[in-house]
């Protein structure tokens, strides 16, 4: 569904992503792990067109999107859910969700998708007339996910959803992401808090210093000494 071929990205002068290649299959829960500041967020931003690759190729649903603008990429169903949230603070929850359905495909299904989002996150339905700025950290995180789904996403690229949340809320968020995945959505998740999410993943990829040092199915990752040392063992 999504394929990266030898991607290189610079963040200013800094060579943040080095020759990264991987493949996400339809329906997968693909987990990218790695220490902070090792290029995971840069990777997602590159895929979603917010940053430009210096070289390499990105293919989504057999269309090349390497140099496409973000709005075109979103329209194709590849949607980024940012760590920094980037909600519209002076708009209501409902307006935030509706703006998620900006692209033509999503607009046509706005009502159905909205129903699904409210079913998935009943709290968002309760708070639909509240301003996004007044939401708690956990609620805001749910709203970013809901807004991503509203874009008629086929693949959600989620950046560090546990960031700034208490452990109990993290679990709630991860459970929701798993639920979204179970309904058929492909998930590309970047995370540091691996222990709470590892059970959901189909495939795990470890990034260090912008390079992929491991990429394989979960079972294999759990047996890999390096992966275990870096994350699972603590």
């Amino acid at each position, binding site marked *: 569904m999504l394929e990266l071929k030898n991607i290189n990205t610079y963040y200013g002068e800094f060579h943040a992503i080095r020759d990264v290649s991987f493949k996400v299959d339809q329906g997968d829960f693909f987990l990218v792990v790695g220490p902070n500041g090792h290029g995971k967020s840069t990777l997602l931003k590159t895929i*979603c067109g*917010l940053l430009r690759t210096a070289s390499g190729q990105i293919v989504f649903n057999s269309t090349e999107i390497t140099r496409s*603008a*973000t*709005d075109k*990429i*979103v*329209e194709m169903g590849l*949607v*980024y*859910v*940012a760590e*920094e*949230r*980037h*909600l*519209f*603070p*002076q*708009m209501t929850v409902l*307006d935030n969700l509706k*703006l*998620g359905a*900006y*692209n033509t495909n*999503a607009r046509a299904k706005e009502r159905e998708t909205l129903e699904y989002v409210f079913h998935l996150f009943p709290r968002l339905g309760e708070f639909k007339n509240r301003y996004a700025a007044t939401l708690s950290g956990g609620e805001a995180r749910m709203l970013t996910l809901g*807004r991503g789904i509203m*874009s008629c996403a086929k693949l959600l690229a989620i950046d560090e959803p546990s960031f700034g949340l208490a452990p109990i809320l993290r679990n709630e968020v991860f459970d929701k992401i798993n639920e979204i995945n179970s309904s058929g959505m492909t998930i590309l998740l970047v995370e540091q808090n691996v222990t709470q999410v590892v059970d959901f993943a189909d495939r795990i990829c470890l990034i260090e210093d912008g390079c992929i040092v491991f990429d394989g199915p979960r079972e294999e990752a759990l047996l890999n000494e390096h992966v275990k040392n870096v994350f699972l063992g603590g």
Partner: protein
Amino acid sequence: MNIWVQQIIQVIISGIVTASAYAIMGIGLSVIYGISRVFNFAYGSFFTWGAYFAWILFATFSWMNYPLVFLIVVPAMFFLGMGTEKVVVRSLRWRKNWQVTTMMVTLGLAFFMDNLALVIFGGFAKPLPPLFRGAINPFGFTLSVQDLAMLIIAIVVILVFSLFMSKTRVGRCMQAISQDMTGAEIVGIPIKKIFSYTFGLSTALVGTGGILLAPRYFITPHGGWAPFFRVFVIVAFGGLGSIRGTLYAAFILAIFESFVSWGLGATWVMPFWFLVFLGVLAFRPSGLMGTWG
């Protein structure tokens, strides 16, 4: 009624009328910064050119009238603004120090536009016919129909503008961009296109201001700088990027200006604006509603 009270009320009325034109122009300058993050130094020149376009129409067609002038000039200004964004700003955006670069480039554009006007129209001031003639005298005050019309047009423009921002898709996208540009990009809003629209909208607003104020003053090639400077102080005072702040600031400062002009004389008007500007920078650089930076 006491003659002083009557005069003071008259001064306030006059301030409110000017405020309405400043408010329209202030909103235009504010949105262009709040949404497309560009400070447009050619804003005053677009003001002048809006008035010149109106003058051309009146000078060419003897049967020309104001409704038709607005109908032709306002859309023309919109497209001129969109074109300016595409040609002048777009290629510079997001390069190193682009916000400073675009300021300099729009300043250059201002000189170009002003001097083009000087070459084409000459240095002599051009008049526009009055919007309306005559005056009314409600409760013993004098209010020219022209001023009343200006006030009404400005209120209508501001209402249409706020409806546009809150009800239309493009307006909501503009709001989204001003609240979180990356967020807008993430949800798939084509931000480049919206930037062009914003430039167009802003230019159309200042063009409207130009046509509204031209019948009161004359049109000269460099005549846009004085209103531009005032509007600049207004948006700085109200908080650049904040529409509501701009509206409050337009009314507060225009009424003050009116008092300064009445009490101290018209020569003190520009020093007054300058003092307000210094005061804003010294005591509250983010403005009343503060969204600078």
